[in-house]
């Protein structure tokens, strides 16, 4: 299973990168995706998550070729 991961705004700045890729086999939640590519950095408390551009919870299971995005609270408008 291949997952594309994207980061935005202050989270992108603090990680120092905007994207990751993760190859995996078996069931994988969004929380697992974060840990798979950020093993030493805990998931921020207020982070929002989207899969294929729809909001999901951290327990949401991902599928092959999903795009997972992590970002801080939105501040548009």
């Amino acid at each position, binding site marked *: 299973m291949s997952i594309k991961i*994207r980061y*935005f*705004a*202050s989270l992108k*700045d603090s990680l120092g990168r905007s994207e990751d890729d993760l190859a995996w086999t078996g069931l994988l939640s969004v929380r697992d995706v974060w840990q798979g590519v950020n093993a030493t950095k805990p998931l921020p408390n207020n982070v929002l998550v*989207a899969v294929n*551009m*729809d*909001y999901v919870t951290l327990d949401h299971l991902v599928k092959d070729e999903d795009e997972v*995005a992590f*970002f*801080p*609270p*939105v*501040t*548009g*408008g």
Partner: protein
Amino acid sequence: MAIMIRHAAFDPWQEIQQYQNLATSGYGATSIFIGTMRDFNDGDTVKAMTLEHYAGMTEKQLEKIVAEAKQQWAVLDALVVHRVGHILPNEPIVLVSVWTLHRGDAFDACRYIMEALKSHAPFWKKELLITDEERWVTHNTDGYKSS
């Protein structure tokens, strides 16, 4: 219905006029919200702002928000325009315009779209202060609370 992401300054009044002339008819009420960049925030002078967005998700979420408004109120048409990129004080950031038969639906649907945009559309503001310090805006205020 139209959702537009603009990378350069826009004139909200021109946008409304053009869209209304081309797309909208049969309305009896129009409600308009325009958000404009302030030159101050949290006690500091702000000289510019960069608005980042998640292209694709932004449009998807805004379309969903407008569809939700149309389910709740008798909306004939709606226009949402949002800036991204480098923005200067007094430039418009967002325009929401809603056309309906009667004023109640226009006011309520316009308010709903704007408040949902503030909490769900993936945009992020980074301010450039007068001191040249840059800082991310960390949260939006609750539009239903008085400031």
